[in-house]
């Protein structure tokens, strides 16, 4: 019997802006100048938030914090394509997505200051709590997508995770289930190339993460994760597909973790200054500024203005966060169960 070729495949990479900020006009997403400007403001806001959070941690005003520096395009671009009705399952390094979706700044800071009350998502948003156990939120998103379809709702589901999560069993189980049921879900992997000290080649022998999706029976696309327009375009298309019954999509947003894993980490122990410098040159904010400047839509002065506005918002957020009274001891038991067990009720009273 002759050998047969059972499958061949191609994996696409999508980028709209090159490193100099020149756009491929054929691939430009349908966005108004105002919408692009809004994304720029959100990326700058995310950067300001991040820088402030790191410095607050150094001053002892926040706990351990995982910086998002370098991932602003991946987060703002993807979250800009989401609608309020959509369900979002973050990992713990998605503050740019939270800011884009309108999660209150004081509340975001409050969580990283060690206050669980901040995980009570405002009612108008469907964002799940931060998920610290890597990859374990991915099956939750699959369940929400199952429920949305069962309810015939138009909501789609987006789940965020990193390159490290693609090594976990939950990634496999969830991707497989989403493929079997052809669910309305977008898997947004920010491949920032480092899982603490382990580089991508230590996570997988696969030539791309995007191609993993093909084994589960749906499309996987690699997107230039430092190109906000490409990320928006790919996410928007994937969400449209999800909403119209076309099933799941896996997006690999190739980006770079420009900072340490967390404020408790020192990336200098395991990666070179040259590599970091290379990616500093690919800064996603810089790239969008170059694109805007080429059409006269951005000047250094305007850039300073955007930064000042962002700084003012963060200043106010920090003030409001620090004005929140600390939780009372009895709040330890809040949400333990709808009705506390007799033992919990006694412990709450100090018995």
């Amino acid at each position: 019997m002759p050998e047969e070729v059972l499958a061949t495949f191609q994996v696409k990479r999508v980028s709209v802006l090159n490193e100099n900020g020149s756009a491929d006009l054929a691939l430009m997403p349908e966005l108004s100048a105002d919408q692009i400007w809004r994304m720029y403001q959100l990326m700058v806001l995310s950067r300001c938030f991040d820088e402030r959070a790191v410095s607050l941690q150094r001053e002892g005003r926040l706990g351990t914090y995982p910086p998002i520096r370098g991932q602003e395009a991946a987060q703002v671009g993807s979250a800009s394509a989401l609608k309020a009705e959509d369900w979002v399952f973050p990992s713990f390094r998605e503050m740019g997505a939270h800011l884009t979706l309108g999660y209150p700044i004081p509340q975001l800071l409050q969580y990283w200051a060690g206050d669980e009350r901040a995980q009570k998502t405002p009612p108008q948003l469907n964002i799940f709590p931060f998920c610290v156990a890597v990859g374990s939120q991915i099956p939750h998103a699959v369940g929400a997508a199952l429920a949305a379809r069962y309810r015939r709702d138009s909501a789609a589901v987006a789940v965020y995770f990193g390159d490290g999560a693609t090594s976990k069993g939950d990634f496999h189980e969830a991707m497989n289930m989403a493929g079997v049921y052809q669910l309305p879900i977008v898997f947004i992997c920010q491949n920032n190339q480092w899982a603490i000290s382990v580089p991508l080649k230590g996570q997988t022998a696969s030539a791309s993460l995007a191609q993993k999706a093909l084994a589960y029976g749906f499309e996987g696309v690699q997107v230039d994760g430092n190109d906000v327009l490409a990320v928006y375009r790919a996410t928007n298309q994937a969400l449209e597909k999800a909403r119209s019954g076309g099933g799941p999509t896996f997006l690999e947003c190739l980006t770079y973790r420009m900072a340490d894993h967390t404020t408790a980490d020192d990336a200098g122990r395991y990666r070179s200054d040259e590599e970091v410098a290379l990616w500093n040159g690919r800064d996603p904010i810089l790239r969008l500024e170059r694109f805007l400047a080429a059409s006269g839509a951005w000047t250094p002065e305007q850039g300073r203005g955007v930064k000042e506005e962002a700084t003012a918002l963060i200043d106010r957020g920090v003030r409001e966060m620090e004005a929140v009274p600390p939780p009372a001891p009895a709040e330890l038991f809040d949400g333990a169960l709808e009705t506390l067990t007799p033992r919990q009720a006694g412990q709450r009273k100090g018995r």
Partner: protein
Amino acid sequence: MAQLNMVQAINQALADEMARDDRVVLLGEDVGRDGGVFRVTEGLQDRFGAERVLDTPLCESAIMGAAIGMAAYGLRPVPEIQFMGFTYSAFEQLFAHAARLRSRSRGRYSCPLVVRTPYGGGIKAPELHEESTEAIFCHIPGLKVVVPSGPYSAKGLLLAALRDPDPVLFLEPTRLYRMLKEEVPEVDYQLELGKARVARKGSAVTVVAWGSMLERVLKSVDGYDAEVIDLLTLNPLDLETLLSSVRKTGRAVIVHEAIKTCGLGAEIAATLAEEAMLHLRAPILRVTAPDVPVPLAKLIDQYLPGPDRIRAALDEVLKY
């Protein structure tokens, strides 16, 4: 009233609740077309459709994880894990997420799901098909753990669990599935979670048991003035019922088929010592499996507590 076995009683409870509440959705391995490996969900897919009785891929962690997402979205999923030994693959989802979602989100999200799983030994099944590691799950704050001891309690507890606002682990004693028949009302009734039942009145010694050990204890106490408590809910414990019995009898024997070290008997004994020490006339004794993995069929009778060991413990405490 019909005489039903436990399989039929659980099936009836699921069917009734699915008919009453369209948020109830079953999912698991082989639960649909095949009706489950023990046929507990037989006929439900035909009646309610494949969208409400989902045959899943073989993936315990995603079954549990997806159920969490469904519950948070507003459904009332009932994931089945085919055997208790396979819940270990889903343990992170149960511990890190299902049980703490309400707390972590400070009530914005909740997780009303019922995990059903067959548990316990004595059915001549392969390795990991006869586990009784209930104590591990009782160490998870936010998760209720329920064990019926017969068809009547199975239906009443399951209906209560399905209407509970928080996650419940519902352990189905496999050995009892088709062993006992009881009168099971066709009407809707609930047995309140967190409430134990005095299965036999007595005054000289309190014997605490649950699941398949209850039947064994009831057969072993003939001729003893023993009060037998059927726990029914393992977490939260019904301390009121336990304490009032032990304060009366002054003696306690706890019988479980799980191993001794850090078994639920340890928690019960410690609580009795804390709360009822001055009423005790004898040491609290535990009759348990030895601290080894559950054996296959040839040694299972040496592993599970039997009538001789139960009676020896009763004789021992009654010496005081």
